[in-house]
């Protein structure tokens, strides 16, 4: 189906199902229970996971397949966001023109940066991309303020021209009139599930992006990219110039980043310069490695893990901890709470750092390898389980 073999088709279907049921999967705990704090099924987080999943998927096409480690992909994310918001301001709040422009502009920008950076390899390439992204960030924050609105970020204003929109059209990003912020809530057995138009929009695009990634992985082009990573020497002694292949991968991943940037602006029409900072570019590197570089699902898992940790752990403050451990005797409760407070709330970054260290040390293949190990253990216990292990 869709040019995929049977195994990949079932893999794609599983991914589609997982994505479509995200509002349930990320909301496992009932309202009011102590564990409700860990529910992540609200629109913003779900959409962020989808968007950063796209970002990481694209990055993985470059890094996972060719091995070129770029620290500058934040620049394309930022450029995508700026393009989308400008489109909102000038033309229309319909999301399609904005997203299309984001992808195009990011593609052109990555062509320029890729053309220059790919003249070098290894750490020299990494530093070139880092330098260009950091330059973009700093200029966007200061000198380019008329274009980017600097520190405050580019945002919508009532006075924007929006020449294609009717006077009574929606004032928020919309899908032909349907506002992306519209949500439907389903209350079942004390669970509240939120179905948000914006999330499903991002989810559909993420699935399309995933499908394209799958096709690229399975294509001769994908094979060539892996060949670049494996042995550039043999590649050129086989009559193939690696440069166009790496550049194509760079531009494709830049376009994915631009798409993600555009979607960020669609979900929340504000584009800030911080999106271009090297820390954001570093974040996508981390997502990809954490999930499993070069695997199909790994980068998405990595993106989910980091965004979840950032948004959920940072909200577990001492008051919440006290409410969890209130059953303990007073002195003990304080000790336990102050221990956990070290890792949650304002200490969430510590947990993040520890997680990087543990995963990289013990699971060199990232979270996907962890999943595989667990799967293998289960399989060894039940040898008759069918061998269905598509998340390679």
């Amino acid at each position, binding site marked *: 189906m869709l040019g995929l073999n049977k195994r990949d088709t079932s893999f794609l279907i599983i991914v589609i199902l997982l994505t479509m049921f995200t509002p349930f999967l990320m909301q496992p705990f009932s309202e009011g229970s102590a564990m409700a704090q860990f529910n992540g099924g609200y629109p913003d987080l779900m959409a962020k996971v989808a968007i950063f999943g796209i970002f990481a998927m694209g990055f993985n096409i470059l890094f996972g397949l060719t091995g070129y480690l770029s620290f500058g992909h934040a620049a394309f994310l930022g450029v995508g966001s700026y393009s989308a918001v400008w489109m909102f301001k000038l033309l229309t709040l319909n999301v399609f023109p904005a997203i299309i422009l984001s992808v195009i502009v990011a593609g052109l920008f990555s062509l320029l940066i890729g053309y220059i950076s790919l003249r070098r390899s290894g750490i020299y390439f990494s530093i070139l991309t880092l330098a260009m992204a950091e330059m973009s960030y700093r200029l966007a924050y200061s000198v380019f303020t008329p274009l980017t609105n600097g520190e405050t970020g580019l945002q919508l204003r009532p006075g924007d021209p929006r020449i294609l929109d009717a006077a009574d059209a929606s004032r928020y990003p919309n899908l032909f009139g349907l506002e992306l912020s519209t949500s439907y809530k389903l209350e079942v057995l004390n669970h509240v599930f939120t179905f948000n138009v914006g999330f499903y929009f991002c989810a559909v695009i993420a699935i399309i992006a995933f499908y394209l990634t799958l096709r690229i992985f*399975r294509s*001769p082009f994908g094979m*060539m990219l892996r060949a670049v*990573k494996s042995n550039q020497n043999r590649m*050129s*002694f*086989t009559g193939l110039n690696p440069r*166009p292949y790496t550049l194509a991968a760079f531009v494709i991943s830049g376009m994915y980043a631009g798409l993600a940037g555009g979607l960020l602006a669609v979900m929340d029409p504000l584009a800030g310069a911080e999106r271009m900072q090297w820390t954001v570019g570093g974040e996508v590197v981390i997502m990809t490695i954490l999930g499993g570089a070069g695997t199909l699902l790994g980068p998405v898992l990595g993106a989910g893990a980091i965004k979840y940790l950032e948004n959920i752990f940072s909200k577990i403050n001492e008051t919440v901890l006290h409410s969890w451990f209130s059953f303990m005797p007073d002195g003990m409760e304080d000790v336990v709470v102050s221990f956990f407070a070290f890792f949650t709330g304002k200490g969430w970054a510590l947990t993040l750092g520890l997680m990087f260290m543990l995963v990289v040390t013990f699971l060199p293949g990232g979270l996907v390898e962890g999943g595989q190990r667990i799967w293998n253990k289960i399989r060894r216990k039940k040898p008759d389980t069918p061998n269905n292990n598509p998340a390679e």
Partner: protein
Amino acid sequence: MSILEVENIGKRFGGLKALDNVNLSIKEGTVHALIGPNGAGKSTLLNVLVGKLVPDTGSVMFDGQSVLGRAPHEINQMGISRVFQTPEIFGDLSVMENMMIPCFAKRDGSFRMHALERMMDEKQIVASAEEMLVEMNMIDKREMHAAAMSRGDKRRLEIGMCLAQQPRLLLLDEPTAGMARADTNNTIDLLRQISEERDITIVIIEHDMHVVFSLAQRITVLAQGTPLVEDTPDNIKGHPKVREAYLGETAV
């Protein structure tokens, strides 16, 4: 008719003369061996031929066209393939994929995306890759991780990958180094077959004189970056200067 003309090649590394005024003419359809002690400049010469090194002086003409100043992949496209001393294959890819890449290169030497095509839909390429694997006697290993194979198998694969491109000139850098005697004999047979059936010119660097004298029609002896003598194997065997300088220390 000579296919490769090397004239006055000189290359210095700092104060060291790696190649000094090398002249060489390779006849089409022959097996030509380069021998000489370590450091004689054999590998440096090969590196010049494939575009990995740019010489300080001289010219290299392949089939009437200059090779110098071209990138390695362009030289390869002209019809020169090379087998390295340590096998250079795509270790992270399967054996089949390793073989498909030169088949692709043969068809699309210049860059084409193929990004949304299915690899297995490339029937012609799959077929020719499989054919080559059969010929190399490796078809049963097609799904194997290339890096996991034995050294001998890697060498066979590399030779197969070069042949898949149907080159006119094949350069081999010590193809039997570190091989057991049986493997060496297999390799000799393979190379002889290549030379005779496929009409491919072969330049081979080799220390094992058994291999050299079983295969070569012409032999050039290099010493200290410069050709000492060039002749047929029989004459080389009896050449006093060569015996003294090189073969004297080697049991023939």
